[in-house]
């Protein structure tokens, strides 16, 4: 009971805080401090990389997919969006790189509302990994990975070195670079997908059920490698899944969504102990052993 009270309380606090921060951005202080702020790196003080401020999204037909979502993603954390299909997780993800635009409310990346940002620049600064991978079938692995660096006009030599570095980082041999996607296994394809997303070293990574289509063993392997990679790189990650086990293993926070609304956002250990009806229903559905998963993921 005490735990439930605390978690619901902290949720309320964070939502409230979100609203306050929305306002704070609109009214920048015009005093002496502002010149100090201006001389510093814009993100030096602020750890909020992605902010959702009262975001709603409806389909062109009027059907509501997302209602009044307020959520923040801190620098270096892996926020997992958990929920069943149709709960609005993927929509939330696509609002970050503006593949979708909110019907109302505001999404901010590094403090700038995405609607004001140059969309191409915004997207090139955000890695994007999807379940179906979406490698370009007519490009070699190397060219697939080099896509964003090439678009950004990196020198040939630097791009080539980066590709080699990335192949190694995601556990692929250098000779894989000359293969075509259809010559790769599912696990290898998604490794390339991750390498491609990391190519231009974006600070943010969006991952939409990246391991969902893989066989259990490969999935397990890639999840563990992702954890290792994330410990090294400390990207700000938003990760969509419907698999609670994956959420607890990989997330530093798990945001549970249902019917277009955020239900709770909790650290993995809190999540497994939560008495929130929907959260505990999830935990029950997945059975025993989840606490150890939650602990391993964050240790």
């Amino acid at each position: 009971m005490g735990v439930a009270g605390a978690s619901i309380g902290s949720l309320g606090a964070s939502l409230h805080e979100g609203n306050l921060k929305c306002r704070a951005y609109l009214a920048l202080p015009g005093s002496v401090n502002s010149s100090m702020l201006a001389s510093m790196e814009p993100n030096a003080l602020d750890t909020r990389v992605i902010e959702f401020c009262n975001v709603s999204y409806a389909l062109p037909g009027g059907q509501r997919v997302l209602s009044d979502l307020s959520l923040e993603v801190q620098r270096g954390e892996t926020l997992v969006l958990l929920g069943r299909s149709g709960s609005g997780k993927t929509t939330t993800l696509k609002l970050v790189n503006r593949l979708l635009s909110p019907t109302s409310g505001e999404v901010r990346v590094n403090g700038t509302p995405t609607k004001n940002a140059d969309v191409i620049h915004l997207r090139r600064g955000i890695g994007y990994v999807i379940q179906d991978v979406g490698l370009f079938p007519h490009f070699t692995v190397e060219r697939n990975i080099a896509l964003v660096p090439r678009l950004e006009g990196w020198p040939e030599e630097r791009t080539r070195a980066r590709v080699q570095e990335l192949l190694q980082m995601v556990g692929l041999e250098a000779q894989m670079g000359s293969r075509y996607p259809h010559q790769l296994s599912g696990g290898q394809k998604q490794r390339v997908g991750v390498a491609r997303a990391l190519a231009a070293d974006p600070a943010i990574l969006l991952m939409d059920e990246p391991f969902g289509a893989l066989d259990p063993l490969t999935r397990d392997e890639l999840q563990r490698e992702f954890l290792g990679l994330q410990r090294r790189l400390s990207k700000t990650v938003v990760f969509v899944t419907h698999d609670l086990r994956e959420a607890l293993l990989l997330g530093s926070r798990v945001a549970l969504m249902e019917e277009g609304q955020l239900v709770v956002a909790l650290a993995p250990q809190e999540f497994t102990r939560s008495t929130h009806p929907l959260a505990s229903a999830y935990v029950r559905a997945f059975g025993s052993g989840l606490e150890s998963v939650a602990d391993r993921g964050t240790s």
Partner: protein
Amino acid sequence: MNVFQFFSQNGAQVLELTFEHLWLVGISTLLAALVGIPLGIAIAHRPGLNRPVLAGANIIQTIPSLALFGFLLPVPWIGDRADRLAILALTLYALLPMIRNTYTGIRGVDAAVVEAGRGMGLTNWQLLFEVELPLAMSVILSGVRVAVVISVGLATIAAAIGAGGLGEFIFRGLAMVNNQLILAGAIPAAMLALLADVSLGWLERRLQRR
């Protein structure tokens, strides 16, 4: 006199009419590609446009070719010269396969590939030239192939309005009830169609393999 004797005796004229034929087909195919492929690209990206455009191209296809020549005759500048008239008619007929195959090819590109490309910050033009067109190319090319084969056959009718081409032999043969003369036009025309079909088919398969 059989057909082969005819060819050896009238080689120069056969060659001339073959080139005329090729010219009619070549120019009209080029024009149809210049109009049809961009139109196909446009309707692939604007779902509202595809029905009216494809319906329009379909309707053109149903007009009998001789009637189309007749319709175009009063059009200023076009109607002044037979070859212009023939080229425009052939262009109109070649539009449908070009538009439809470009549309089908681009819509057939894996949605995940397009989404990944868009998500990584490709502009619409980059998406078109780096992803959609290369992946749709073999389907587009098969539309070009169909258009060329249709045009080679149709272009024989252009001789009816005096635009030249291998149809001249055919019409002359019909008028004189001379089968040799008809074959002298029909055989090279059939060979052109086959040649176009085979070579473009080869190109298509090469592109597909990549």
